[in-house]
C-alpha cells in the first residue's frame, strides 16, 4: 500500500515538472536550423488584419531555455553590447528593458536586428558571431524585457547591481513593433 502511495506521489511530481527538461538542458552542441522566415518589422499590413506575433518554435526554444539565456547574457557583455545598451537601460543605443521597440520586440525580430544590423548605429554582426550565439543573445534581450519564461530568467548578476533582477521584471507586450511604437517605459 505504502509503495503505491509513493509511486503515485512520484508520478504527480514528475508530471508537474515535465517542463523542466527543456528549460534546463545545457545545449552546447547544436546549431540551429537556419530560419528562412524574414521577420516583419511592423505588424501593420494591408488587408486589415494585423500580423500574428506568435514566436516560432525555434524562438520559443531559445526563450524558454535557461542555459541559452544565460549564455546570451555572457555574450551580451563579452561582445560589448552593454557598452551601448547598458544593463538594458540603454546608453548610446536604446533601452532594451522597456516596451518600446524600434525594430520589433519578438525574438525573431531581435535576432534579425543583431544579425542584419539596423540603421542609426546598430552594427550588423553577421559573420562576427555564430547563428546560435545570435539566438542566445536574442533570448537574453527578451529576458531583459521580461519576455521569457520566469523559471528560465536569470536573477542578479555577479557584478555591479544595475537593474532589478530579471526574475522580477514584469512581462511586456512584444508587439511585432514599429519604429514609432511610443510607449513610455515605466518610470
Amino acid at each position, binding site marked *: 500500500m505504502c509503495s503505491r502511495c509513493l509511486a503515485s506521489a512520484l508520478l504527480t511530481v514528475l508530471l508537474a515538472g515535465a517542463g523542466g527538461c527543456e528549460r534546463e538542458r545545457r545545449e552546447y552542441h547544436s546549431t540551429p536550423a537556419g530560419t528562412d522566415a524574414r521577420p516583419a518589422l511592423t505588424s501593420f499590413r494591408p488587408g486589415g488584419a494585423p500580423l500574428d506575433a506568435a514566436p516560432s518554435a525555434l524562438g520559443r526554444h531559445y526563450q524558454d531555455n535557461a542555459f541559452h539565456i544565460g549564455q546570451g547574457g555572457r555574450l551580451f*557583455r*563579452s*561582445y*560589448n553590447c*552593454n*557598452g*551601448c545598451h*547598458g*544593463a*538594458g*537601460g*540603454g*546608453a*548610446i*543605443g*536604446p*533601452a532594451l*528593458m*522597456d516596451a*518600446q521597440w524600434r525594430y520589433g520586440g519578438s525574438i525573431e525580430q531581435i535576432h534579425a536586428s543583431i544579425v542584419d544590423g539596423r*540603421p*542609426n*548605429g*546598430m*552594427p550588423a554582426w553577421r559573420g*562576427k558571431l555564430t547563428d546560435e550565439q545570435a539566438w542566445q543573445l536574442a533570448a537574453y534581450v527578451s529576458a531583459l524585457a521580461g519576455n521569457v519564461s520566469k523559471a528560465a530568467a536569470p536573477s542578479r548578476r555577479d*557584478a*555591479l*547591481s*544595475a*537593474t*532589478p533582477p530579471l526574475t522580477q521584471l514584469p512581462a511586456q507586450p512584444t508587439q511585432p513593433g514599429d519604429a514609432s511604437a511610443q510607449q*513610455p*517605459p*515605466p*518610470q
Partner: protein
Amino acid sequence: MMAMLPGASAAAQADGDWPMPSLDYANTRYSPLQEITPANVANLRVEFTFSTGIDRGQEAAPIVVGDTMYVVTPYPNVVFALDLAKPGAPLKWKYAPPSLPAAQGVACCDVVNRGGVYWRGKLIFNTLDGRTLALDAATGKRLWERKLADINLGETLTMAPLVVKDKVLVGNSGGEFGVRGWLAALDAQTGKPLWKAYSTGPDSDVLIGPGFRPHYASDRGKDLGVRSWPNDAWRLGGGTVWGWISYDPQLDLIFYGTGNPGPWNAEQRPGDNKWSAGMFARDPDDGQARWFYQFSPHDLFDYDAINESLLLELRIAGKPRKVLVRPERNGFVYVLDRASGEVLAADAFGPVTAIDRIDLRSGRPHYVADRQPRNGKVVRQICPASTGMKDWNPSAFSPRTGLVYIPHNNLCMDWLASEVNYIAGTPYLGAESRMYAGPGGNRGAFTAWDPQARRIAWQVKEDLPLRSGALATAGDLVFYGTMDGWFKAVDARSGKTLWRFKTDSGIIGQPVSYRGPDGRQYVAVLSGIGGWAGAIVVNNLDPRDATAGGGWVNAVSDLKQRSNAGGTLYVFALPR
C-alpha cells in the same frame, strides 16, 4: 593684478562679433559689451527664437559675424545662417550635409556638435561622421570637405574646430571605442592636411622631436607613447582630442588636452599611458610638441583632460606670470606656467575623494589607495564621478572681477571595472558605474573661482548638474543655463541671481553675447537637452537601469520629468 593676455583676445572684435565658440584664443568667453548690467538685466526679454527642428543635445555656440548668425546643429549637422539685420532674423541659407546615420552608433555621448568657427568668409565645422567642411559664409556653398575620421573604427568628430595661423585644428572623438586620438591641422583655404599629431604611439607619430622639453621627468624619454603601455595597447589607447584649444600668439603655442586612455578599465593598461589625459603645447606651424603635462597618469576614472585652458596673467610669488588656468575634470583647478608646463598650483574646487592632492614637485596626483579600482570589486564613493567635477562645458573669465566662472557637476559614483574585449567599432569600456549626487545633495554648482587667492569666491548650488557653458560680460553679469531649461543671469561679483527665463528644453549649450546690426547687445543660447547627461531624455533610457547612459541615468533619473527634448535658439535683449 591680473589681465587677459593682450593680443590673445585680438580676435574678439571690439564691434561685438562672436566668431568662434570661445570668442577669443585665450578661451575667456568674456564679452566686452556692457549694455546689459545688473541694474537693468531684470528687463531682459526674448527678442526672437528659432527652431532647429532637431531635438538632440544642442551643445553648440551660435556664431555671430556682422549681421549673420550661424548655428550648427547636432547630427545630421545642419548649418543655419540667420539674417540678423531683418526683424525676426529670418533664415538666410541652410546647409544640410549628406551624412552616415551609422555614425550615431559610435557617438558615445549623444550626437552632439560643439559649433563652427568663422574664418575669413568661411564657416568651418565638423560632422559626426568624420568630415570637416568649409562653407561660404555668405551663400552656404560648400568650399571644401575633408574626411578625417573612420566611424568603422569608432571615430567621430564632435569638437568645434579652431583656426590658428590659417590652419584648421581638428581632433577626433571616440575615446570610448578604443580609437587612437589625434589632432590634425588642415589648410584653411583648401582643406589640405598639414600635420597630424597622435596622442599615443612612437614619438614620430606624436610629433615629439628635439624641441620637446616637458617640465617633469616622468614625461621625458624616448617613445613613452609606446613604452608606458602594455604591448600593443597604445594602438587602442584613446587620448582623443575633442575639447578646447587655446593659442598664445606671443609664445606661438597652441594648448590642448587629450582624452581618457582606452579602455576605461585601468587594469588592462598598466603604465602611465602617455600621452592620454594630459595636455600638449605645440607649435601650430609644424605641430611639434613643446611640452606635455599629464593630469591623470594611468587615468582611473575616465578623467579626460580636454577642458578649456584660460590664458591669463597671474601674480605668483610677487611676480607676474603667464599662466594657463584649467578647471579640470579630476576636480582641481590647475595653474600652469604656459611656457614650461610647470604646475604652479592645483586646488580642488569641489569634493574630491579619488585623489589626495597633486604633488607639485613631481606634478603627479596622489591616488587614494582604497579608491583604486580592481577588476570585479565595486569601488564606492568616488568623487568626482567619471563625467568629472567639470565636463567639457566651458567656463568664463572676467578681468573686471578676476574670477573664473565654472559651471560644473557635483557627482560621485560607484564604479566596477571588469575585463573588456576590443572589437573595433564597439564600445571599449570595461567599467560600469552608478552616479549620484555628491556631498550636499546638489548635483550641480556654479562656482566663481578666484585663481589668485586659490579659493571659491562664491557659489550657486544647482539641483541638477550644470552642463551649459558660461558667459561673462563687461556689464558684470554671468550667464548660464540649467538642464531643466532655466537661462540665468547672475551678478558677477556676488552670484546673486538677477534674472531667469525658462526655455522649452534643458540648456547644455554655450551662451554668447553680441552686438546686433542695430547696435544693441544681445545674448543668445541654444536650448535642447541631450549630451551624455541628457541621453536619458533624448534616447529615452530606462531609469530602472542604474548604469544606463554610462551611469548618468542614476544621477538624473528625474530628468524626464524636468525637461523634454528640444532644439531652439533663444536670443534675448533689453527692450528697445
